[in-house]
């Protein structure tokens, strides 16, 4: 059996997102070989109209999912159980988490100008955002695979104008420092700029 068959079996069996290093270990290959194998598999899946699956990516984890073009197949099976509608506050918070992840609640609060604890908790309960690593005393939030499944993209980076918005906050943070508002803001727990999200965390 080829490695690609093993990869397929593994992803199918596991179901949940699985870390690339775990895949490499189980298949007995190096991380580089693994990444190559995954890219190859991804390529096969996406290039063929005869395949119904694709690879969802989040950070170093991957997961198999059905293609968004086939959403009516899933809908025919699940009916309304997975329905998730968004209120304006939930949408606002979720959009910021998606574009800025990993991001602290303080940053979200700062941009929205309101306390987002309820919205964040609600999204977290619904499995649309999740808490990741701790940054100092606060957690950093990211969108989940469930979010990707609802919007039908394989990776948050494929959201429209992702790069622009992802880097926008840092530009603003620098501007803020230049106008030296930071001194004033330091007393204020709302200020998020000591913890601007970094690309490398993705």
């Amino acid at each position, binding site marked *: 059996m080829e490695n690609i068959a093993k990869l397929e079996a593994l992803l*199918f*069996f*596991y*179901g*949940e997102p699985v870390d690339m290093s775990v895949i490499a270990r189980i298949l007995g290959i190096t991380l580089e070989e693994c990444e190559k194998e995954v890219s190859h598999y991804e390529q096969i899946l996406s290039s063929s109209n005869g395949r119904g699956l*694709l690879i*969802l990516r989040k950070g170093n984890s991957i997961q*198999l*999912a*059905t293609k*968004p073009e086939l*959403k009516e*197949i*899933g*809908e025919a*099976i*699940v009916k*309304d159980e*997975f*329905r*998730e*509608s*968004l*209120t*304006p*506050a*939930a*949408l*606002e918070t*979720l*959009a*910021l988490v*998606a*574009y800025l992840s990993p991001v602290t609640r303080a940053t979200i609060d*700062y*941009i*929205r*100008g*309101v*306390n987002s604890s*309820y919205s964040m908790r*609600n999204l977290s309960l619904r499995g649309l955002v999740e808490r990741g690593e701790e940054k100092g005393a606060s957690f950093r939030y990211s969108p989940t695979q*469930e979010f990707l*499944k*609802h*919007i*039908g993209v394989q990776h948050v980076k494929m*959201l*429209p*104008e992702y790069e622009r*918005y992802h880097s*926008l*906050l840092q530009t*603003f943070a620098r*501007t803020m420092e230049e*106008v030296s*508002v930071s*001194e*004033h*803001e330091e007393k204020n727990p709302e200020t998020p700029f000591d913890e601007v999200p970094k690309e490398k965390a993705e």
Partner: protein
Amino acid sequence: MYELKLDQYQGPLDKLLELIESKKMEIGTIALASVTADFLHYLEGFKIDLGIDEDSLSEHAQYDAPLELLADFLVVASRLLLIKSKTLLPSLELTPDEQAEIQDLEVRLKLYQEFKRTQEHVRACWSDMPKMYTREFMLSAQVLFYPPSSIGPNELLGAILKISGALESAMTPKVRVKNQILNLRTKIEEVIAKLTNIPQNLRALHGEGNRTELVVLFLAILHLIKQQIVKVEQVDHFSEIMIAKMDALKVE
């Protein structure tokens, strides 16, 4: 239920942006000054809109979150008030802190305006039913007994203690709202004190209408603070909520 209700409301920046955009103005001091009255007018409607009624305040769920939201609005309102005062009274001296606050509001509003586009993007992609479906975790695996290497009653208790601790701290009374309201009151007192200390400058006002407007703004805020904001204290989640009106303002 209040949580669901809260979700339907616009935040202060969102409201402010809407007001400015409805006047087709660019974000800046002039625009902010020109929408101050509208913003405060919107704030005045809060009590009715959110159903905060002193008779129902004993119902924890009825007021807690809206009060939080109101506090966020008041922060913005206090900054608008500064901007408006400065526009009406150019000779009014602002402290560096106050200058910074005004600048901060502008910058944040611009930031908010930028990021509002992300909502449109996500809304455009979003579908209530998922577009993709995945398999359940280890759907075909057999249930066997795989106990973790080291676990006992104490580990379970340890986890429970951590959770209980987190719950307790999540329920400690929120002093933030109270502090912000007190800060705002101080700020208004300061501005009014400045006005009364420099009576000669009042004549420098551009016109009667403007002066009236300024007075109306202060009155609106004072009214809001006296009539609608109450001091809220709660010792812990399950105790009764103590409510007391704030002391009458010394100014006026």
